[in-house]
């Protein structure tokens, strides 16, 4: 059954802040993708799918957030776990390159802050799980190329993940 938004009193400021954080992270993610393309000619994530597959770069599920069957508590949970996962993936890219590190660091901080925003709201609504989610095992990027390719893939997955989140937030923001 649809868990109507109203059954979970989400403050309007929370929805507005989350929307802004999504836009902020997507803007930074695009900067990372542009730099990876300009500097290393790694411009197409689809050219790195096989490598991503072999490295085992996980993607975060958002099944509870689909517009047809929005299950809000589950959606918040998956959003928070997904952000936590991407925070770990961005950390695994450490040492990507001197030029890109500042962008990756800022991106990772913003994702971490967004995860905290969601987690604290779940605590305030008393729907937070007893234990913070775990990131699971992170891929090991063993070469400079793998870190750059990983950067392209993580940025691309994160962008798609946030597109879905933004749709839900816009749905929640509708009066």
């Amino acid at each position, binding site marked *: 059954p649809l868990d109507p938004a109203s059954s979970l009193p989400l403050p309007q*400021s929370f929805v*507005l*802040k989350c*929307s*802004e*954080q999504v*836009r*902020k992270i*997507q*803007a930074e993610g695009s900067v990372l993708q542009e730099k990876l393309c300009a500097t290393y000619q790694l411009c197409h994530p689809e050219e790195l799918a096989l490598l991503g597959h072999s490295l085992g770069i996980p993607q975060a599920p958002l099944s509870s957030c689909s517009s047809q069957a929005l299950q809000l508590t589950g959606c918040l949970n998956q959003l928070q776990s997904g952000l936590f996962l991407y925070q770990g993936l961005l950390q695994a890219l450490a040492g990507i390159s001197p030029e890109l590190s500042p962008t990756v*660091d*800022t991106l990772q*901080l*913003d994702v971490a*802050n*967004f995860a*905290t*925003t969601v987690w*604290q709201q779940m605590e305030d609504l008393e729907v937070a799980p007893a234990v913070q989610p775990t990131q699971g095992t992170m891929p090991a990027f063993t070469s400079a190329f793998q870190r750059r390719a990983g950067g392209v893939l993580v940025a691309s997955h994160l962008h798609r993940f946030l597109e879905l989140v933004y749709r839900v937030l816009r749905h929640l923001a509708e009066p």
Partner: protein
Amino acid sequence: EECGHISLSAPIVRLGDPVTASCIISQDCSLLDPEPQILWKLGAELQPGGRQQRLPDGTQKSTITLPHLNHSQAFLSCCLHWGSSLQVLDQAELRAGHPPATPSNLACFMNLTTNSLTCQWEPGPHTHLPTNFTLKSFRSRGNCQTQEDSIPDCVPEDGQSYCSIPRKHLLLYQNMVVQVQAENALGTSVSPQLCLDPMDVVKLEPPTLWATAPRQPGCLWPHWRPWKPSLFIHQKCQLRLRPQHEKTNWTQVATLPSSVLQHQLCGLPPDTAYALQMRCIRSPLPGHWSRWSPSLELRTAEQAPLVR
């Protein structure tokens, strides 16, 4: 072993307060004269009023009290006559000043280009003493009733009254508490606490204004683009105009969401030069107004000649 040694009641006192000093002349220095007369100098001036006594171990001790130390810094010397000259045996630095006043007008803004939170304050009157200012902050929740993990102290560069907390110490979209502490030898004072979310105090730069040729007479067709680093922030913007080169009051003509990037203004006299300005503020989330943009000078189109 030292020839003479000064000890002070306190090396640093409040301006105008008294200072007491004593000077002990060791035996091997006073051998030359069994009853050497100890003299005091403050800076270059001899100071009367030294009370001298002979200690059981034979050393000579003089004590002097300066009733009001009115110099923020002065040197007190303990001297002896030796032949025709006055010999300085020891010298102590006296300092006087005020405890720090409470730092006031603490204000912070988030800089989107450096990604840091810069806070500034009024240090208060000069204390005449080395005074350290430290920006203390910690993370919080809700309306800052609780104290969560603390943030490393931010120490401003010498003599400056602002400090920037780097991005990695900031938790955006959550409230934090900020406070500035002033400390010198005579005391410590702290400013009132500020409770803020860095993103609510973003310092916005004004949008960029330009224009394309107006379509109808008496109209203007300004375009704008929000400040690039703030594109992710929903804003509302105010547009104002006034006849060019006239210092008349500005007329506010529109308040528009930042996503609207142009606006047609009509009903103006034809062939007239105007100055336009725009400013923006984060909206609906809290924020501060940007400055007004530089003026954009535009002229309304001429009235088309009436064909009889």
